């Protein structure tokens, strides 16, 4: 058979290491000495109650926030301060909790913006739209069409994103993140506000992205059944601190996690 069907999931070396990260906004400690690592090809979930610091963690990883303490090491290079575009150039892409797409632009164009960093010709060339710029545009369009096919959003290719229902907008946003061909994909509540069927679809896409594109995924999610089903490992945050980490089964059995979710008074 031409296809290799027996390939096991190969979790690789450490791709991202987060060491002792702290960040505070005024008196609020959003993150307090959090450390964990993410290995190549794995799906890691960050869970925790509201205000636990999950989104702040993602914001630190992709350079939107600058942690006041601690070191983030991505692909072996440690960094302290980094701009978001530098993070993107290094291969980190993300989606947002409250969708951040260009509402007036079509699905196709939105996903095309995700290719921006891959385009080599300058603005002038692109404006001319012939010669090498055309060839380049066609290559990118082909890549975008692959993503559209992958996410099964052919029917909305030319629909302005603002007109789409929430679940589909989430999918388009995932498409845009994929267009950058990221090594590390950060998903902030990819399934919030979705119905059961949409969630199931999204789970499948996330697993397929991991499988077919080989992307490493860090995701934040509230739906426990989803998290337990698709993640390789789970990190639990509560009040800015890491209270547990491990496989879904280990985390499920952890007393601190149960307390955090069922609500035990904190001293």
């Amino acid at each position: 058979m031409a296809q290799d069907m027996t390939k096991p999931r190969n979790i690789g070396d450490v791709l991202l290491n987060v060491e002792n990260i702290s960040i505070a906004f005024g008196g609020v400690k959003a993150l307090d000495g959090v450390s964990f690592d993410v290995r190549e090809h794995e799906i890691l979930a960050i869970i925790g109650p509201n205000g636990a610091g999950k989104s702040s963690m993602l914001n630190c990883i992709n350079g939107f926030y600058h942690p006041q303490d601690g070191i983030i090491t991505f692909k072996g290079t440690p960094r302290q301060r980094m701009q978001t575009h530098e993070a993107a150039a290094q291969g980190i892409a993300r989606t947002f909790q409250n969708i951040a797409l260009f509402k007036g632009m079509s699905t196709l164009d939105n996903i095309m913006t995700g290719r921006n960093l891959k385009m080599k010709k300058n603005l002038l060339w692109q404006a001319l739209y012939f010669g090498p710029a055309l060839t380049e545009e066609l290559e990118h369009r082909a890549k975008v069409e692959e993503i559209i096919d992958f996410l099964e959003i052919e029917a909305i290719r030319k629909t302005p994103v603002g007109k789409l229902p929430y679940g589909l907008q989430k999918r388009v946003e995932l498409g845009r993140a994929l267009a950058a061909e990221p090594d590390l994909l950060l998903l902030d509540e990819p399934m919030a506000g979705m119905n059961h069927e949409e969630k199931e679809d999204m789970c499948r896409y996330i697993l397929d992205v991991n499988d077919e594109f080989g992307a490493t995924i860090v995701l934040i999610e509230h739906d426990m059944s989803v998290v337990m089903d698709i993640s390789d490992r789970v990190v639990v945050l509560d009040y800015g601190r890491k209270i547990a980490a491990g496989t879904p089964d280990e985390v499920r059995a952890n007393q601190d996690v149960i307390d955090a979710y069922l609500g035990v008074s904190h001293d």
Partner: protein
Amino acid sequence: MSDRVPDSGRPDTFPKLLRENARVRADKPASREKDYGIWLSWTWGQVGGEIRALACGLADLGIGRGDKVAICGDNRPHLYWSMTAVQALGAVPVPVYQDSVSDEMRYIYDHAEIKFAIVENQEQVDKLLEIKDTLPHLEHIIYRFPRGMRNYDQPFLDLYTDIQDRGRAFDAANPDFYEAAVDRATGSDIAIMLYTSGTTGRPKGVMLSFDNLIITGRNGAIRENLTEDEDMLAYLPMAWIGDNIFSVAQSYVTGFCVSCPESSDTVLQDLREIGPTYFFAPPRIYESLLTTVMIRIEDAAKFKQFLFRYFMAVAGRVGIDILDGKTVAVAERVRYWFGNLLIYAPLKNVLGLSKVRVGYTAGEAIGPDIFTFYRSLGLNLKQMYASTEASVFITIHPDGDVRPETSGTPAIDVEVKVEDDGEVMFRGPGVFQAYFKDEAATHGTKTDDGWVHTGDAGYLDSEGHLHIIDRAKDVGKLNDGTLFAPKFIENKLKFFPHIKEAVAFGNDRGYVAAFINIDLESVGNWAERRNMAYMGYTDLAGLDAVYDLISDCVAQVNRDLAADEKLHGSQIRRFLILHKELDADDGELTRTRKVRRSAIADKYTDLINALYSDTDHCAVEAEVTFEDGRTDIINADLKIREAVRIAGIQAEAAE
């Protein structure tokens, strides 16, 4: 049964027709498919090569004469090719509805003794893997798209293109094999086996020969003057007989190109891009297109609304006469010409129907208003009366004599008669061979001299047009002896855009009562216009205002019924709006969306009892089945309304 032999020398099987087309029209497109946003086409010559490679690969895997091969997935050129490849080996393709749940699949795979399955993607493979242990005959599964299949290592799974590669190697080693296999088959061999959805009981496997399909397809093409230049979009299920005639038989016979949509969600866009000249759609598609148009007109500027209404009135007066080639006053012709410029042509263009020469509808009754709407735009829409057992065509509207209330005149070589008890029967070249492994049902349906019972009640009028009233077994009587034709009443209800589905009860009861499903799009838009908040189907269906809206529709139906001398007693007395949409996954509809009366009666006994009592509400708990087989429970408290009944005309008639 074939008492009509095809002209000698003409290719009498699909693989032979393919060989002919690959020779005569080698460079003409045969199949098109939109993939990655681009239309790809294959010429007849290329299709010939693809099918040959696949057939040889299947032969190498052990498929031989008489084996059954299931084919399951959306309309894809590769799946169509696989049917011909299977036929080339003398094996029988069995297309299966792609949205069937595992249990339905299991029955068909088991009953048909399927040996191989050729399926579209991971979703279909997963459904089969779930039931494979219970299917001793199933040896091999071939899938078209490798996506998501990376970690499947079962030895009986193969990729479509790998089988073709294997076939090319086999072909090189046995160069005479393929042609010899093709030559071995004849027109009287079984070409295909289709499982009818059936509103009652388990599906039956209808066996059709090459003669059935090819002669029927050719006769249909002759009647409508189809040529090799037609364009057609294949978007209806491959397991449905119509698709096998329109997209397969007639394409092979005339050589026209068949296009497959990008996905089932993009059909309307693909329709616009392809611009078919030959088009089939069940009534619900025409209805939903019209509903979309009307909703958008409501949102349009006042001047546009005025133009639309003015010119639609013109079209309503003269459009159909112009289409039928009758004499029309010059002034009206001029108005119609302007109307065409401003409204009709752009509207047809938006719907993707600009180039349609022949449009068919069948399966259910189409509302006369909807039917005349399309015809008045200049679209040559025709109804036909069709059945799997007839290889589709029984009667068709003839050009120039199209009447919305009839199903048309018999197709070429088809005879139609009505039995004394009112049942319609037919005989012709398309009559099926037998039901697979069901001698009793075959004898119950087909007489020894080739007449087939349709189970439909109807009559032929003086000009030879067939009128269908209802399923013969559904026609009943109320307690007081009044004639009760449920389908007739349901159709009248369904002709309202706000009503999607209806089920009428009344046989051996005191009066007629009905379940109603609202149309979420239409009623939802109506509610939005009135600033009414709702959370979903169940919520919307329970609103008092919606009950008022539907009540008006029911009253209108009762008014129509009151005018009918036989049916005025069967007016609807009580009705309720169901809390969920009737769904094929829950066994309430067939896969072709026909109401399964007995299943509904069993499932909703409480609701029916409530309709025949004094109560004005009824609590209901219903189980819904998702496509993957899981189930969930919905709770609701349904209101029951008394309908407005009309006595006036009855009283007048009595005077």
